[in-house]
């Protein structure tokens, strides 16, 4: 178990190391926005490295604070990790979630302005990435694993489709709302214009009659 665990961790490290990264300054917070339907499990792997690997002369204590904010901008999860970690959370509400990362490396004040690399991989749904790590000689098990992966994939697609339908309904309601408002404002403006016109004429007529000019 120990060796497999180490193997899995190393694999994650390597998969991350060939993935996408972006630069993170000291005490800088960068956020990723993810549109997540409710009750979806989200897994994120990240790896923090100094920008210039050869320039690492001291054992800096690198750390990342990962914060997850839900669609109402409330903090759902906020945890500190070392330089390599994995975080998971389940979205309670449908909508845009903000995944923010901030370094809290302690020794960096000495090297002001040094940048860090943050490798990031975010996955949604319950299919585990480590199904490749389970290699067996048994064909049936391999077949089963492949089929399970396919099923997870299809469930993810179906869930996203359902979410898309919900959002489209919201979109349609906003659209109808806008349409209704445009019509209502047009009617109100026309009626106010007409009534103000009459009021002006009446006022002027009374004024001129009072001034004995008419």
């Amino acid at each position: 178990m120990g060796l497999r665990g180490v193997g899995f961790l190393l694999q994650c490290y390597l998969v991350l190391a060939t993935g996408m990264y972006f630069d993170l300054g000291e005490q800088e917070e960068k956020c990723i926005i993810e549109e997540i339907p409710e009750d979806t499990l989200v897994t994120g792997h990240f790896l923090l490295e100094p920008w210039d690997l050869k320039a690492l002369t001291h054992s800096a204590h690198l750390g990342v604070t990962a914060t997850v904010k839900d669609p109402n901008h409330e903090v759902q999860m906020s945890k500190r990790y070392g330089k390599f970690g994995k975080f998971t959370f389940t979205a309670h509400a449908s909508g845009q979630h903000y995944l923010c990362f901030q370094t809290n490396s302690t020794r960096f004040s000495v090297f002001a302005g040094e940048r860090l690399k943050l490798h990031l991989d975010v996955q949604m749904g319950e299919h585990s990435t480590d199904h490749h790590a389970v290699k067996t000689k048994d064909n049936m098990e391999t077949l089963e694993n492949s089929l399970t992966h396919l099923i997870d994939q299809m469930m993810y697609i179906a869930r996203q489709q359902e979410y898309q339908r919900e959002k489209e309904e919201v979109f349609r309601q906003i659209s109808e709302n806008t349409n209704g408002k445009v019509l209502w404002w047009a009617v109100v403006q026309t009626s106010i214009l007409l009534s103000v016109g009459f009021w002006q004429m009446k006022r002027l007529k009374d004024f001129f009659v009072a001034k004995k000019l008419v």
Partner: protein
Amino acid sequence: MHHQHRMMYVSAGLCLLACLILTVDLTLGLRPNKNIAFTFILPAGTTECFYQTTAREDSMEVDYQVIAGSGLDVGFVLISPSGYRLISDFRRSDGIHMVDPTEDGDYRLCFDNSFSKLSEKMVFFEVIINSQSSIGGAQDEWVDMTMMESTGYKLEDIRAKIDTVYQHLERTRQIQTLLRTFEARDRYLLEDNLWRVSFWSCVNLLVMLAVAVTQIYTLQRLFDNTKRVCT
């Protein structure tokens, strides 16, 4: 000194172990497609860069779209590991680019919002990497195939079908992501429109009333003045 040497050996050993695991992994059928999608907010007047590592002879597809922000446009630059500027888009709202074949190293994708002083942009981008190195490598996974041949279906066929279905599902996911971003962009635009319609209608109403009242009082003042002048 001794401690440093030992650390070096340990890290070299770990590296070797890591390389071994990666090689074994690739030959045992690591899926060839990698798909990374991010949505982020690009503040006004800034440039954000993302880096993607690729191997040789892969193909990489980058597509991006601006979802929110006035003007709905952003500049995009793609720089290869050797420093050449491959793609340079100036103020476009969406774009799809393909790089084939890719070099070994880190490609740099930069989004530029420096032309806008006030409005921040929400940008969605997706990087799809089709890796050539492991397509033919999944042969060793299925050992002892003779066992299943009696059923009439070769295991090889089943595996090929599963691979095909998997590729199609990946493509479905990618297209779904694209459609999702279109919908998000349209929804933000519509919400903006709703707010703008309400606001400007209110302003219109107030201006109308103010102008009507001003007209009447100005006319009355005019006649008052002439009356005073005349007499």
